[in-house]
């Protein structure tokens, strides 16, 4: 069971209070974009074995979206940060690098 802290309201709660909303930091492609770009955005998943960036919503709380870095193997939560962020902040990257040396942001790009 995950214990999460919402960066919006500061409340710490267990996972049933929150809801996961898929991969974070996606580059979105809308109508008029190339088929390849749309397909990649819509369907291709990183689904990593390790550090995963994902959107969560504090459903039974403040109701706000935020982003979380979490390890899919150990279930360790590296940290949460506001949804209005385009790239993971440095302290989150450092926390991941400490546990997974050699790790790199967006191997797929």
């Amino acid at each position: 069971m995950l214990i999460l802290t919402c960066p919006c309201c500061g409340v710490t709660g267990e996972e049933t209070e929150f809801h996961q909303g898929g991969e974070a930091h996606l580059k979105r492609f809308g109508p008029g974009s190339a088929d390849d770009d749309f397909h990649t955005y819509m369907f291709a998943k990183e689904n990593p074995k390790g550090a995963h960036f994902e959107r969560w919503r504090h459903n039974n709380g403040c109701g706000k979206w935020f982003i979380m870095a979490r390890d899919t193997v150990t279930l360790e939560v590296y940290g949460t940060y506001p949804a209005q962020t385009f790239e993971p902040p440095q302290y989150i990257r450092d926390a991941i690098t400490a546990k997974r040396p050699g790790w790199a942001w967006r191997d797929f790009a």
Partner: protein
Amino acid sequence: MKHYSAFAVAREALRHHMGWERAWASPEPKKKYDVIIVGAGGHGLATAYYLGKNFGITNVAVLEKGWLGGGNTGRNTTIIRSNYLQDPSAAIYEKSRSLYETLSQDLNYNIMFSPRGLIMLAQTEHEVRGYLRTAHANALQGVSTEFISAARVKEIVPIINLDGPRYPVLGGLYQARGGTARHDAVAWGYARACSAMGMHILQKCEVTGISRENGRVTGVTTNRGDIGCDKLGIVVAGHSGHLADMAGFRLPIESVALQALVSEPIKPCMDCVVMANTVHGYMSQSDKGEMVIGGGTDGYNNYTQRGSFHHIEETVRALIETFPMVARLKMLRQWGGIVDVTGDRSPILSKTPVDGIFINCGWGTGGFKAIPGSGWGFAELMAKGHSPLCDEFGLDRFYQGRFIDESVAAGVAH
């Protein structure tokens, strides 16, 4: 391979059972094989078996990072059914179910196929309509199912509570030839038959890299050395994304933990598989007498083979409403497996962007029932480049928006 029979049991009994040989060999890896299958679970071994049996390709290695059948093959709730709504699904699942009927004889290995019947409960008006639709679709597809009344459900499953406070049982979709089989035996039986054809089953052999040249696969790097191949089949369920990453492409797959649990063994009380998809719980009784219970998937990607506790609570709550007598049972074991879930809840049996690499994944929460059919179709795909059973399940269906939508349309527990 020595033939298993009643005579063999009698003969070995006279020799104090000293004459049994190992069911499959554990050879050293060769430098190169025609075909390498990654993943010695049910689907991987079935693929290898039908490559040999149907296409005469026996220079095959099946690589397994752990032990044979130790992933989802040994972790599922052993349910076999083919009552799917969409035509391509019904075709491959019914092929699979029909292969299960004679699999013990074909493999000379008792897989304990038990077509005891399977009911999916309809507990809302919408579910009634949905299952009526599925029953009609199945009639057109040649899959034998019927919609039965609540009274008939009670007749088949006396321990059920029809008038639950939240969701009364209004009827059910019944597949009389659905049922269960011994999951480990399916993997072991295929492994024994593959080994007898001269194929290599390499356990504790983890693939750490996939070598390519000019967009074509040339082999794999493993903890037991580099092994070359002409064709590579990736059949690794929850770890498909990880292997695809090694080969340089991404999949429309998310891996999540799915849980199951079993109770203490009790006397026979339910000779049928019952699935209650609205309240989300399903249950059957094993030959040992344990009630085998399937739970839900976690709400987020993970690779932990455990699962969140609140899903057990949800499942048990649903079952107690449906089967009041299980309230007093103690649960013996709980475990999780990593399932590979696609957006349309249908599998992927496909070529990939890399020449020579084929992938069989996306079976999600319901792969066990599909093992023989999936192996049959995937072997044909690998041998000939296409297969009528697999063609609709290509990776290109996401690109084309041609989904095989089982997630909302059919009675699929997920």
